[in-house]
C-alpha cells in the first residue's frame, strides 16, 4: 500500500523527515518496506507560450519553435508532432534537470546546444519527461489561461513528495488509508490529528423522493447510504487531486471517479459513483441471486458471477457487484448529468467470497474484506458529495438516503494494568496506558485502581480482547523499550530424547563413512514415482505447483537418482551421497495422522568410480560390496548389527531384518531404473527405516567396555562345496548359529567355480577366527566345532568340506 507523505501531512503537523517518519511507522507496526521520491519541485521549469512553429531547415522530423517564457523569448528545437502556436507548454530552461532518471540512472541536465545546426535554448517537455505519467506521445499542453513565465510547480500545483510502501498486516484494516496511518504517527509522536471526518453525522433531510433503497440481504449488507449530485460537468480533476492520486500510483480518470478514489485513500471507505439516469425506476436493491449471472464490469470484461454473490441492482437489473466493481451499464460517462454516490458497509466474508470466486481484487474489495468502519458510510458519503459538487460544478442535493438495518455499537473491553505488565514484563502505570489508548482514539475510564474500561472505536474491528489492547499499548510504547531481564528463571532441561540422540548419531556415522549429505525434494513427478510406487499407495497434492512436483515421495531413492543424474551430467565421476528425510504413503494405520504412514528414512548411495584411472590405480567402479560394507559398518556403529538377519528379496535386493521386520534394503540400481533417470554409471543404494529402528527400541546404544582377551585367537580355514543355488549368506548364517559364542569373526577368502568341482557346484572358503576369553585355544578345542559346522552344513545345505 502506498502512502504519500505530503498527503499524510495534511492531517498532522510534524517536522519529522520522511526517513524518520518511516522509521517511526515501522516501529509502531506499519512496516515501511520502501521509501521513494515522487515528483519534483521543478526548479528551472516555467510555463511557456508557443509563439511560432517553423520547420527545421536541416531535419524533417524536427521543428523550430519560438517560445515566450515571460521576460525572454527562446528558440527551442522540438520533435513532437503536436506542438502548435498559441499553446501553453512546460519549458525546461538551461540548467534545469529532468526529474526522471535516464536508463543509466543519471538525470539529464538541460544545456544550450545545437541540434542539426540550429541552436536550442531549452526543452519543451512531455508528461513522461516530467514524470507525471507514462504519456510520451507528444508534448504536454497546459491550460491556456496560465500566465506565461509562471514557475511550473505553481502552474501544476506540485512539489516533491515522498511515498512510503507499507506492508500492511491483515489485522490493521484501519490503517489502509492516509488518516489511518496519520493516526498511528500522531499517537507515537503525541500530536493532534486533524481529521475532516471527525464530526457528527449531519441531520439533514432524506432523498427518498429521488431514490428508493432496499437492502434485501441484511446479513451481507449492514448499511447503504447514498447522496446525489446534480448537473455535474464530468471533466479533468484539478492538479492537486491528480497529483495526490498519481503519487500513490493511481491513474486520474475524471473529477467524479477521482473523488471516490480520493476519499477511499483518505479515510478507507470504498465508494461507488453511479450514473443516476441509468438506474431504472430510481431504485437500489441490495440482494443476491440463486443462479449464476453474466455481468459486464467497468473494465469491460463479461464475467460469470456465481450464485449467492451480492449485487447492487436498480429497479430492473444488477448494476454493480457489491464491494468489488461497478457495471458498464451504470458507468459515469462524460455526458453524465446526475451522480449517485454509494457508501456502504458489506460483510467482510461476503466480499472475500465474491472477490475470490471472481479472481478479482480491487481497492474496494481489499478494504471490505478486511473490515472497514461500519459507522463511516454516512460521513464519507457527505465528504465525497461536497467535494464532487465543488469540482464538477454540480448541485449537491440536500439530504442523504441512509438505510442502516444492522447497527454496530463500539465494544467495551476491560484492561487490567497488572496483566499488561505481567505479559509484557514492564512496570507501566495506569496513566501511561490510558494516555496511549487515548492517543489511539480509544476512550478509557478508570475502573478501580488497576483497570481501564476501554471503548473501542468501530474503525478498529481487530480489537476484541484484553490482549489486543495490551498489544496496542506495547507497540506504541515500543517493544525495544521493554526492560530486559538480567537473569531468566532457570528451567531444568530434560535429557535429549532417544530420537534426537539417534538422529544426530546417524548423521555422525554417515559423514564418518565419507558420505555427503544431500537434500532432495519431498515432491516428485508422478512419472518419477511410478518407478517406486503405484497410485493406490501414494499420496498426491490436490493442487501441485507444477507437474514436476505432484506426488509425495514414498522413498528417498527418487531424489538420490535425480541428484546422481544432475551431477553425472556435469561430469562428476564419483558420488557418495546420503540423505535423511520423511517419506509418506497411504496406510491403514497411520504414524501421526490416520491413514498416513510417515517414516523417517536414511538413504546411503554410491555411484560411479571407486578409483578413476591414475598413475597408481586402474579405473575401478564401485560395487555393491563397497556399499554393503559401509552399510554394515553403519549397523555396527549403531549397535544393531548383532540383531540383524538378512533375506534376499524376489528381485534380488538384500533385506535386513530386525525382529522379523525389514528395516533396510540394499539394492543395485537396475538397468531399467538407471534408464528412467538417465544414469550411465553403476549405482547402488541402501535405504534404512529409522522410524522402525527407533520403534523397535534400538535407538540408543549404550556402549559398555568388554575386556580385551589376553589369549590369542585361533584361525581355521574351511572350504565348502555347495550347489550354485546355495547362497553364501545361508552358509554364513548356519556357521554363526552352530559355532556359538567362540566364533569371533567370519570371513570369506575365496569363491571358486571350476570344472573339477562338478557341474552346478561352487566352493566357498571361510576363514573362521575363534577366541576364548579364558584360555588359549588349540586345534583340539576348535576341530570339534568345525566338525559340527560341517555336519550341519551338510545336512541343511548339502555342503561338503573340501579337503
Amino acid at each position, binding site marked *: 500500500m502506498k502512502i504519500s507523505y505530503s498527503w499524510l501531512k495534511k492531517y498532522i503537523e510534524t517536522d519529522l523527515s520522511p526517513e524518520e517518519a518511516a522509521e517511526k511507522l515501522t516501529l509502531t507496526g506499519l512496516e515501511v518496506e520502501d521509501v521513494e521520491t515522487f515528483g519534483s519541485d521543478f526548479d528551472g521549469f516555467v510555463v511557456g507560450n508557443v509563439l511560432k512553429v517553423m520547420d527545421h531547415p536541416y531535419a524533417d522530423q524536427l521543428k523550430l519553435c519560438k517560445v515566450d517564457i515571460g521576460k525572454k523569448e527562446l528558440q527551442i528545437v522540438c520533435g513532437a508532432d503536436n506542438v502548435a502556436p498559441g499553446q501553453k507548454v512546460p519549458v525546461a530552461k538551461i540548467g534545469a534537470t529532468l526529474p526522471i532518471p535516464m536508463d543509466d540512472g543519471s538525470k539529464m541536465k538541460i544545456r544550450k546546444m545545437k541540434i542539426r545546426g540550429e541552436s536550442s535554448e531549452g526543452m519543451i517537455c512531455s508528461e513522461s519527461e516530467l514524470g507525471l505519467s507514462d504519456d510520451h506521445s507528444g508534448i504536454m499542453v497546459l491550460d491556456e489561461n496560465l500566465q506565461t513565465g509562471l514557475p511550473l510547480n505553481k502552474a501544476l500545483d506540485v512539489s516533491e513528495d515522498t511515498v512510503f510502501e507499507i506492508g500492511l498486516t491483515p489485522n490493521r484494516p484501519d490503517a489502509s488509508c492516509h488518516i489511518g496511518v496519520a493516526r498511528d504517527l500522531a499517537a507515537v509522536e503525541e500530536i493532534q490529528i486533524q481529521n475532516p471526518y471527525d464530526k457528527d453525522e449531519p441531520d439533514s433531510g432524506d432523498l427518498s423522493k429521488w431514490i428508493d433503497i432496499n437492502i434485501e440481504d441484511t446479513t451481507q449488507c449492514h448499511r447503504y447510504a447514498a447522496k446525489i449530485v446534480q448537473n455535474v460537468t464530468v471533466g479533468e480533476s484539478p492538479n492537486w487531486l491528480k497529483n495526490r492520486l498519481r503519487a500513490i500510483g493511481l491513474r486520474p480518470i475524471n473529477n467524479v471517479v477521482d473523488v471516490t478514489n480520493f476519499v477511499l485513500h483518505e479515510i478507507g471507505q470504498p465508494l461507488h459513483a453511479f450514473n443516476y439516469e441509468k438506474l431504472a425506476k430510481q431504485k437500489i436493491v441490495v440482494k443476491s441471486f440463486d443462479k449464476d449471472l453474466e455481468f459486464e464490469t467497468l473494465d469491460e470484461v463479461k464475467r460469470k458471477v456465481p450464485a449467492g454473490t451480492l449485487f447492487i441492482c436498480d429497479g430492473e437489473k444488477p448494476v454493480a457487484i457489491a464491494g468489488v466493481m461497478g457495471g458498464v451499464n451504470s458507468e459515469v460517462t462524460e455526458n453524465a448529468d446526475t451522480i449517485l454516490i454509494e457508501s456502504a458497509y458489506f460483510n467482510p466474508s461476503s466480499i472475500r467470497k465474491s472477490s475470490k470466486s471472481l479472481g478479482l481484487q480491487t481497492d474496494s474489495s481489499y478494504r471490505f474484506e478486511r473490515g472497514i468502519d461500519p459507522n463511516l458510510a454516512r460521513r464519507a458519503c457527505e465528504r465525497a458529495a461536497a467535494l464532487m459538487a465543488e469540482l464538477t460544478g454540480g448541485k449537491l442535493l440536500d439530504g442523504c438516503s441512509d438505510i442502516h438495518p444492522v447497527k454496530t455499537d463500539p465494544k467495551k473491553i476491560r484492561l487490567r494494568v497488572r496483566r499488561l505488565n505481567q505479559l509484557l514484563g514492564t512496570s507501566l502505570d495506569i496513566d501511561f496506558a490510558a494516555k496511549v489508548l487515548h492517543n489511539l482514539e480509544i476512550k478509557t475510564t478508570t475502573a478501580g485502581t488497576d483497570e481501564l474500561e476501554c471503548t473501542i472505536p468501530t474503525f478498529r474491528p481487530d480489537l476484541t480482547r484484553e490482549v489486543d489492547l495490551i498489544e496496542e499499548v506495547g507497540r506504541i510504547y515500543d517493544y525495544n523499550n521493554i526492560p530486559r531481564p538480567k537473569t531468566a528463571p532457570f528451567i531444568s532441561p530434560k535429557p535429549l530424547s532417544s530420537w534426537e540422540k539417534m538422529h544426530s548419531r546417524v548423521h555422525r556415522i554417515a559423514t564418518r563413512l565419507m558420505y555427503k549429505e*544431500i537434500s532432495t525434494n519431498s515432491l516428485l513427478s508422478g512419472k518419477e514415482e511410478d518407478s517406486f510406487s503405484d497410485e493406490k499407495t501414494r499420496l498426491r497434492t490436490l493442487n501441485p505447483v507444477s507437474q514436476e512436483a505432484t506426488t509425495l515421495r514414498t522413498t528417498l531413492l527418487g531424489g538420490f537418482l535425480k541428484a546422481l543424474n544432475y551431477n553425472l551430467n556435469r561430469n562428476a565421476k564419483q558420488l557418495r551421497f546420503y540423505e535423511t528425510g520423511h517419506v509418506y504413503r497411504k496406510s491403514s494405520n497411520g504414524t501421526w495422522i490416520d491413514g498416513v504412514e510417515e517414516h523417517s528414512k536414511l538413504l546411503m548411495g554410491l555411484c560411479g568410480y571407486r578409483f578413476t584411472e591414475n598413475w597408481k590405480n586402474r579405473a575401478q567402479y564401485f560395487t555393491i560390496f563397497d556399499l554393503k560394507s559401509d552399510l554394515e559398518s553403519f549397523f555396527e556403529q549403531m549397535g544393531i548389527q548383532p540383531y540383524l538377519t538378512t533375506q534376499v528379496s524376489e528381485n534380488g535386493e538384500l533385506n535386513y531384518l530386525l525382529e522379523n521386520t525389514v528395516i533396510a534394503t540394499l539394492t543395485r540400481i537396475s538397468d531399467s531404473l538407471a534408464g528412467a533417470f538417465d544414469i550411465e554409471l553403476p549405482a547402488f543404494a541402501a535405504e534404512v527405516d529409522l522410524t522402525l529402528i527407533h520403534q523397535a527400541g534400538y535407538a540408543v546404544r549404550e556402549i559398555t567396555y568388554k575386556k580385551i582377551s589376553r589369549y590369542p585367537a585361533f584361525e581355521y580355514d574351511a572350504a565348502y562345496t555347495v550347489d550354485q543355488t546355495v547362497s553364501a549368506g545361508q552358509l554364513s548364517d548356519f556357521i554363526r548359529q552352530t559355532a556359538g559364542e567362540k566364533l569371533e569373526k567370519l570371513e570369506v577368502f575365496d569363491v571358486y567355480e571350476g570344472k573339477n568341482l562338478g557341474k552346478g557346484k561352487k566352493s566357498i572358503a571361510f576363514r573362521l577366527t575363534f577366541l576364548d576369553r579364558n584360555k588359549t585355544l588349540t586345534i583340539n578345542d576348535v576341530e570339534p566345532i568345525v566338525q559340527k559346522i560341517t555336519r550341519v552344513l551338510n545336512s541343511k545345505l548339502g555342503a561338503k568340506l573340501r579337503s
Partner: protein
Amino acid sequence: MIEEIKNLRKEIAGTEITNEETLEAFRLKFLSRKGLIQTMFARMSEVPQEERASVGKAMNEVKQQAEDKFRKGKDSLTQATATQLRATDDITLPVAPAYAGSLHPLTQTVNEMKDIFFRLGFDVAYGPEIEDDFHNFTALNFPPDHPARDMQDTFFVQKSGKENAEDLVMRTHTSPVQIRLMKETTPPIRSIIPGRVFRNEAVTAKSYFQFNQMEGLFVDEKVTMGELIETLVMFAKMMYGEHVKYRVRPSFFPFTEPSIEMDVWWGSDFDGQWLEILGAGMVDPNVFKAVDLDPEKYTGYAFGMGVDRIAMLRYGIDDIRILYENDIRFLNQFTG
C-alpha cells in the same frame, strides 16, 4: 699420550668417506672393538693418575669426533641413494584428496542454531510433515476463511469441504508441533522444533515449494515479552556476533498476540539494510484454549525462523534452488 690423541684427531679429520667401502673402512679403523679409539682407551692405565682427567676428556672428545664423522658420512650416503628410488616412489607425485563426508549446509545451520538453543536450556521436538487442519490451522487461531487456507498458498493432500475439519495439508509451518507438545505434555514446556515445511509457491531464485523452519516455544506461568526479546537477542548475538545491530517491531500472526518481528542490520553502517530474521510473539489466548490450558494461569512465547534464509545469508548464497540441486561442486564447499 696427549700428543698421540692430537695425531689421532688429525688422522680422523683427514680420512675421507665417499662411499660404502670407505665408510666401512673408517668404522673398522677407528670405531670397531679393536679400532684405534678403543685401543687408546685400553691404555688409560698407563696414564699417571694426575693426568687422567685431562687425558680422559681428550679421549672422549676424539671418540665423539669419530662418531659424528661416521654418522654424517652415513647420512649423506643414504641421501645419495634416495635419488636412485623408483619413479613411483616419488613423494611429490600429485594425488586427488580423499573423498570427504559432509553435512548439507542446511543441516550445519540447523545444528548451529540447535547448539545455541541447547545452551539456553531448550529441548527439541519433532512432528509430522503431513498435518491435519486442526493442528496446522484451527488450533493456531486461523479463522475458517483465512487466506492461508486457500489452495493458492497451501498444498492440500485431502480436502473435504466440510468446515476444513478433515483436510490434510503439507504443513505450512512448524507451529503445529507446538499444539502437539502442549497437548501431550504439561508446562513448563521449553522446546525448539526444527523441520521441513511447504508452501504452494513456484520455484524461483527467491522461493521454493519447500523450506526449513525452526520454531521455539516456551510456556510457563508468568512468561513475559521481555524474556522473549532477551532470548531472541541472545540468539542473534550468538548467531551473528556480539555486536550485531538489531531491532524488534510489531507484526501480526494469528497464533501470537502481541506479535513481533526481529530485524538485524546487514552490511556496513552506511551501505546496509534491515533484514527480517524471525517472527515471534506471546502465545495467543485462543491457542491456549484450543489445547485446554488456562490462559489466565499460563503465558508463553513462540518464535519461528527460516533456516534456508539464515543459511543463505550466512554463506552468501543468492539462489535458494541451489540448496536442493545437490551439485557436488556446491556440497564440496561445506566440508570441515
